[in-house]
């Protein structure tokens, strides 16, 4: 467990272009989620979905440190990971609406978007359910010597699942190129994590020999810097690592979780969104560093909005799969 002070800033040299791409990606996720919520409110989306708003810097900071052919596994709150790894919003919205044009032909929905083209092994609706898969992808990468790594995204709630410790043990024994990215947004559904998590989180991976760091999950540059070090290390064959990203979800556990005051205060929510917003934090810094001005942001925002509107329209207009497709894809 190293502290921030000890670490070299490996992304000091982050180019302006990359910084603006990260800005755009975070903003895209934000917009995507706003639309998802809107689709729910307009009763156009079947079921419920879990929004990633507030946590954008985690997915973007980490995925920016990856190669296109690197793998990720994702969670029930997976839109951000998916977009950050390069998925297209139109096919994602189509999937959210259960349409044939979706990434999973409508069969997966929000909680199961997967995309081999971007190395996305899939979102997973079992908390902790992708820990094995991610470790297995790293196992393959090592055996096949293809230089890939895998990032396993999961919420701090998944710290409750024993399988996580089982696979961290094996990842360390076998020096597998996998990074366990814990998104601590402080809530397991409607329960504060302090009620479900004993001891010190970073000590857990450390006990299995994994290097473990915590990072400000609202600061995309910090996330990216930490992730880059672990990615480099893993790619060099030094094995797994654990990155604890402290963050916050702005909205409910899912789109239907509106009255939240029985488990968290409105002020807390307001404090995070007004003081710790990842998009603003990067935006302010870019302006301060004179790397961008507000006109640039406005242009990006307008472009993203147009793209998202078009994507939503595409998805709404897209046809449902035909009923006979229910029996397809059961077996390869």
């Amino acid at each position, binding site marked *: 467990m190293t502290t921030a002070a000890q670490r070299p800033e490996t992304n000091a040299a982050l180019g302006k272009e990359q910084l603006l791409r990260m800005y755009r990606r975070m903003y895209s996720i934000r917009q995507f989620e706003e639309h998802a919520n809107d689709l729910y409110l307009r009763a156009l989306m079947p*079921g419920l979905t879990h929004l990633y708003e507030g946590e954008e810097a985690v997915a973007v900071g980490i995925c920016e440190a990856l190669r296109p052919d690197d793998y990720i596994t994702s969670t029930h709150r997976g839109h951000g990971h998916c977009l950050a790894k390069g998925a297209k919003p139109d096919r994602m919205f189509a999937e959210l609406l259960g349409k044939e044009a979706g990434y999973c032909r409508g069969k997966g929905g929000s909680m199961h978007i997967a995309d081999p083209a971007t190395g996305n092994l899939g979102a997973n*609706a079992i908390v*902790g*359910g992708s820990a094995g898969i991610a470790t297995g992808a790293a196992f393959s990468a090592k055996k096949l010597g293809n230089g890939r790594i895998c990032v396993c995204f999961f919420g701090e709630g998944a710290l409750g699942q024993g399988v996580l410790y089982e696979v961290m043990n094996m990842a360390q024994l076998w020096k597998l190129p996998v990074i366990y990215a814990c998104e601590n947004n402080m809530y*397991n559904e409607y*329960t504060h994590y302090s009620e479900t998590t004993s001891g010190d989180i970073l000590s857990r991976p450390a006990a299995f020999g994994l290097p473990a760091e915590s990072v400000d999950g609202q600061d995309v540059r910090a996330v990216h810097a930490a992730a880059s070090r672990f990615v480099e290390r893993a790619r060099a064959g030094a094995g797994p690592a654990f990155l604890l990203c402290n963050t916050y979800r702005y909205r409910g556990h899912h789109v239907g979780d509106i009255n939240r005051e*029985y488990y968290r205060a409105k002020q807390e929510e307001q404090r995070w969104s007004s003081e710790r917003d990842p998009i603003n934090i990067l935006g302010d810094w870019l302006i301060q560093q004179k790397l961008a001005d507000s006109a640039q942001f406005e242009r990006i925002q307008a472009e993203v909005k147009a793209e998202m509107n078009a994507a939503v329209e595409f998805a709404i207009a897209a046809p*449902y799969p035909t009923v006979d497709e229910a029996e397809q894809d059961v077996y390869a």
Partner: protein
Amino acid sequence: MPETAVQTTVRELTFGEAIREAIAEEMRRDARVCIIGEDVAEAGTPFKVLSGLVEEFGKQRVIDTPISEPGFTGIGVGAAMTGLRPVVDIMFGDFLTLVMDQMVNQAAKIHYMSGGTWKVPMVFRATMGATRRSAAQHSQSLHAWPSHIPGLKVVLPSTPYDAKGLLKTAIRDDNPVVFFEDKMMYRLKGPVPSEEYTIPFGVADIKRAGTDITLVATSSMVQVAFGAAKLLEEIGISAEIVDPRTMWPLDEKTLIESAKKTSRVVVIDEGYHRYGVTAEIASVIAEGAFYNLDGPVKRIGAMHVPIPFSPPLEDATVPSEQQVFAAARELCGKA
């Protein structure tokens, strides 16, 4: 107006309310009963089924856990052996996959392996049922698995009345009981007397009397069977609906008697079709009523595919009134 007077004495409760009431009554009656699970306290579960219980019984008896299904189920087993009567909450029945070792290798076998010395009086409450647009990992009806395991009892209530009476029996039982609640039924209303009652295990209920065909249906499929029965009635076929209520113990006698009477049977269940509970029920009837059957026992389960998210696909995977109607009509030679 005696008719309305009778109606007012029978309360209507939702399925969810009936379950909450059963647990609350048993917790009042017996201090050893406690609830263990994720978000069961203030949140009252995501389905709000347990709302209010923590306010009445406190955090010492309504216990929020980490997301550790194997672990907290195992704690339930140990607690049951040593003086408590835990009701363990498995939020989605799909997560039974995570607790099979604790349920099957531990809870189900401890009484037997110990030569009858230790007991495991606990209830596993698990949801089941599709069409909630929750996709393949949040929609399964996996009751065929525990039904296969000696040492477990398995309950599938279909009405608020049954839910309450059977759950009270489950909590009082000295064995591990797996209790399945179709989450799509939580808002279903039905009469539930305010007086105390329990319903014994192993007693099927004839939900509708009929003469031409027997529809054996479980859980929410009882509603589907009612819909089909109405359609059948319109073409002059009288359907009897039999709800076994408990998969184990199984009331073979009532099932076979009904089959003997009507000579035709369709078995409907929302679990995956293949190797599901319809197979056991159909076999029992096919054997027991062999010489009285006019046609083969027909089985209708969920389409044998992982449950898809997309609404038109998902709807197609669940047994429907039309499907049951068509199968029954064909069996009755009116196709």
